[in-house]
């Protein structure tokens, strides 16, 4: 017992640091088998007719971007490639810079135009109340877009979207916590019978299994789900007509990076399991010595 508590925790920090940095430098990567949850996320988007309108909510910030932004980028590729149009909102104040950057980089490469193929409504304060308000009246909630203050009825895409999610086929959220997927399910999924998909941080993922597949058609959980979805989108990228190759090359690079991250995560998990075993061995030895 005494040995376990005496170990300076900086040795543990050092071990984890060396492991992560060393593996990043080594560049070892590994593909992942795709789970049915991620497969359903992909298939639900694939099943949408071309020209459908979806709402994509960015409910994350930089702290969780490492887990969620790759899925966000891959989702935009997937939607734009399939000619699905996007109403883009955010319930976290730090999300819009990510969303704008991602859409501006990816959508034009597929020949998509702002206003016709995607709109950027931006952040709305109010958490679940803001979600309920979007359901009641998207025009009252967002009279103008977040890009340059255009009245949303002047945006061609919004002429096809009524209030109370009319005209919106699917609701997707990239959710890092509160407010996020659970609040969207309560405020939109249940009340307006919306089909929903989510990408969540690993820590939030266990909450989702109780909602799958009735309230949630599919989900990408943490870096694991992101890697699996990136594989699916990147592997089917060859079927797309793309006007600018650069964003697609970036997607392939993101997929490679995530596959490297999964190997790092594997060693990190093994280190944690080894530390748990070591801690318990020292604990029981100490107890035996005391007895």
């Amino acid at each position, binding site marked *: 017992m005494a040995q*376990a*508590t005496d*170990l300076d*925790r900086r040795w*543990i*920090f050092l*071990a*984890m*640091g060396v492991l*992560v940095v060393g593996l990043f430098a080594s560049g*070892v990567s*590994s*593909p*992942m*088998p795709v*789970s049915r949850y991620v497969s359903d996320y992909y298939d639900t988007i694939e099943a949408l007719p071309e020209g459908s309108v979806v709402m994509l909510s960015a409910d994350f*910030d*930089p*702290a*969780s*971007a*490492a887990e969620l932004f790759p899925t966000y980028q891959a989702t935009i590729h997937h939607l734009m490639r399939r000619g699905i149009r996007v109403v883009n909102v955010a319930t976290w104040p*730090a999300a819009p*810079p990510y969303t704008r950057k991602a859409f501006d980089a990816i959508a034009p490469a597929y020949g998509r135009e702002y206003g016709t193929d995607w709109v950027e409504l931006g952040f*709305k*304060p*109010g*958490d679940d*109340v*803001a979600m*309920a*308000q979007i359901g*009641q*009246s998207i025009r*009252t*909630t967002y009279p103008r877009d977040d890009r340059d203050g255009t009245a949303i009825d002047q945006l061609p895409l919004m002429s096809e979207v009524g209030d109370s999610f009319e005209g919106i086929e699917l609701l997707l959220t990239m959710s890092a916590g509160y407010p996020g997927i659970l609040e969207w399910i309560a405020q939109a999924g249940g009340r307006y019978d919306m089909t929903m998909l989510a990408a969540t941080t*690993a820590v939030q993922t*266990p*909450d989702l*299994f*109780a909602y*799958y597949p009735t309230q949630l058609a599919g989900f990408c959980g*943490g870096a*694991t789900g992101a890697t699996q979805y990136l594989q699916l989108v990147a592997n089917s990228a060859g079927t797309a007509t793309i006007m600018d190759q650069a964003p697609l090359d970036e997607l392939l690079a993101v997929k490679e990076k995530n596959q490297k991250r*999964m*190997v790092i*995560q*594997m060693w*990190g*998990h093994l*280190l*944690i*399991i080894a*530390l*748990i075993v*070591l*801690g*318990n061995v020292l*604990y029981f030895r100490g107890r035996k010595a005391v007895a």
Partner: protein
Amino acid sequence: MKREIPIALTVICGLLITWAFFSPSELSQAVNVELTAWASIFFAVAFLLGIGNLVRISLKQISARHPDWPYKALLMLMLFGYLSIGLLEIHGVIESEYGDKAYQDWIYERIFKPLQSTMFALLAFYIASAAFRAFRARSMEATLLLTAGALVMLGQVPLPIAPPEVGAFFARVQGFLMAYVNAAGQSAIIMGAALGTLATGLRIVLGLERSYLSE
């Protein structure tokens, strides 16, 4: 009156929202839309109140030379600095050749993003340390928790160092634990929490629950 007015407002708003939830009439929906819009405005105003409170506490600590005063000073500098730059850029007082919100974007990309990402990434180190110190198989429940945690961790990642069958085995075990054991527990918790929320909501609407008034 300090007690009665807030309770009356809570009861009236609670009843109106409940009425709107069950009634499709135009009047109830109009009231619902109006009240939700008010709630949204209150949220925005709460940001201002929060900033006001933060400034008040920080200035107090700076003037009292509290041990944390340099951090508070930095907080104030960033708060008002970012706000000022945003306002000056929006009104075109300062401009950059790199775009409309170039200065704000620079602060967001170069300071805010790396700082917040770093804070979250530090969790990996603390979890490793906590795993060593705190996860002890002291009881049957703790042992089950530890074992389930380890199995889920192994099923969550690819295992290129092991034969494919081993990776597939851990993935199946992880899938079973998450889809059945975890989902069953989560469903029970969700139902319990929903009933609790309903009961608390009713108590608030009926004016029986007054803890939000610090009573």
